């Protein structure tokens, strides 16, 4: 069977890329065309109109698409989670200097951030923060970061969406003061000397369901070979002994087209947070494999709660039921 699968070039597309490049798909008799998409909106619409047979997707966007609140309403199924975590919040060096946190723990840093954000509001020049899509954990994690420092981000900062490849440049030119993005873009901003990683997604929202494999609902029943292939690939990605090879695969020009050593550090959870070389070690910085793969309806509950907090939805029992039904634990279990 031949399938066209879409992805956005990020480290957490690894299970799909490895499924194809590592032969897991071929072993299931699948020929997969991997299609790199320039934006989440284009990926979502191509999936909605049948130009893609499945995709690597932001978990909240898959839910928003299924609920009809982002793009054309599309009945989707999630038979597999791709990863947990992987995001980080980076601030510009001038903002970090203004924050001047007294200690390097999350609470102190978040309080310093919230203090500056409040001052900026009183000066009528609020902070501008970048996210990758309105329906993304990135949006929610920025809100959590502010909340951790005692600040409600609504009305306290401007939120803008910026495509990840432009985000380091937007930080350099001062269009934004900080952003939340997936790997490897935080590390790129640090390596280029414009940014300071202020918080890791895995400390803000431990085991956050980040990307999922999304399929049209009608295709779920026959998706066992694909689910098996991507699941095996995800487990291969999770094995530390494969990190070097995986980093090489992902860094290729056809996929991320970036520095393999940055990718490798992200996979290992060893993140350089400051241009001065300060390192953080977070073993759960990005998690693939067994812990990430089971599509739990509890993930839908978690995302709905964040959507509600962000003012994006008002949950009703019917809406909650539809959201939970998208997570197809039955398909995952039946795939074997």
């Amino acid at each position, binding site marked *: 069977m031949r399938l066209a699968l879409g992805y956005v070039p990020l480290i957490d597309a690894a299970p799909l890329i490895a499924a194809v490049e590592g032969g897991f798909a071929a072993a299931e008799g699948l020929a997969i065309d991997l299609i790199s998409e320039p934006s989440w*909106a*284009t990926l979502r*619409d191509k999936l909605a*109109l049948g130009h893609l047979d499945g995709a690597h997707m932001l978990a909240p966007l898959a839910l928003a698409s299924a609920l009809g609140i*982002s793009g*054309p309403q599309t009945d989707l199924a999630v038979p597999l989670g791709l990863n947990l975590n992987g995001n980080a919040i980076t601030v510009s060096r001038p903002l970090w200097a203004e924050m001047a946190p007294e200690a390097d723990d999350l609470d102190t840093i978040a309080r310093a951030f919230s203090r500056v954000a409040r001052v900026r509001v009183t000066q009528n020049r609020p902070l501008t923060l970048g996210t*990758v*899509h309105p329906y993304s954990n990135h949006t929610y994690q920025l809100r959590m970061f502010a909340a951790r420092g005692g600040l409600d981000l609504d009305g306290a900062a401007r939120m803008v*969406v910026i495509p990840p490849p432009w985000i380091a440049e937007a930080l350099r030119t001062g*269009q934004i003061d900080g952003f939340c993005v997936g790997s490897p873009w935080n590390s790129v901003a640090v390596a280029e000397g414009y940014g300071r990683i202020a918080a890791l997604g895995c400390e803000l929202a431990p085991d956050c369901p980040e990307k999922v494999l999304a399929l049209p609902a009608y295709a779920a029943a026959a998706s066992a070979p694909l689910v098996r292939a991507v699941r095996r690939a995800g487990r291969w990605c999770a094995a530390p002994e494969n990190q070097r090879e995986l980093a090489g695969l992902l860094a290729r020009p056809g996929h991320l087209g970036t520095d393999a050593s940055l990718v490798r550090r992200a996979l290992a959870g060893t993140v350089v947070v400051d241009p001065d070389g300060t390192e953080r070690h977070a073993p759960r910085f990005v998690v693939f494999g067994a812990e990430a793969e089971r599509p739990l309806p509890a993930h839908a509950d978690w995302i709905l709660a964040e959507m509600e907090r962000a003012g994006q939805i008002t949950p009703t029992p019917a809406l909650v039921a539809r959201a939970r039904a998208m997570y197809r634990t039955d398909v995952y279990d039946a795939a074997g």
Partner: protein
Amino acid sequence: MTEPTLTVAVIDPSRARAAILEEGLTAAGFTHVVVLPDTADLSARVAALNPDVVVIHLESPSRDILEQMSGLSRHVERPVAMFVDRSDVPMMQAAMDAGISAYVVDGLQPQRIRSILDVAILRFNAFARLQRELSEARGELADRKLIERAKGILMTARGLSEEEAYRMMRRKAMNEKRKIADIARAIVTAADLLG
């Protein structure tokens, strides 16, 4: 009759394609068409222009920037939504095949956006056809140059006339069921290697 008072923004990573669409829309009676550069500050530019319709290429990374204007609509005065006409799936498919998506302000009549999409689909498809023809023409030109070089090599090496050299390559191509340009490429490569 099209609606002349609409403000239409065009966003496309290809400047040439944007210019072609701008011209097409102007010709169709849309007097206020503005091409916006595909850059990170797009959000501010769109807000300043306050368009009724945004036509954006599917390959533009800026699509997610526009999503914000619809996703967080409580923060903008004129909510923007992606245009989807569920009653006309063939047209939506044609738009996607041509690489087009559109965002419209809330409440705009589907009929008014349709004429814009029709122009965009025609223009983008024509642009794709032109590009294909151009790359074919470039390929033909390169093939002809290759054949000329191979002919020269054969003439020198075998003491043939131009006509005889060409016939020799043509016969070889026919016998091997290959294109004459492929035979020419093999001759040129071999000559390069053998000095």
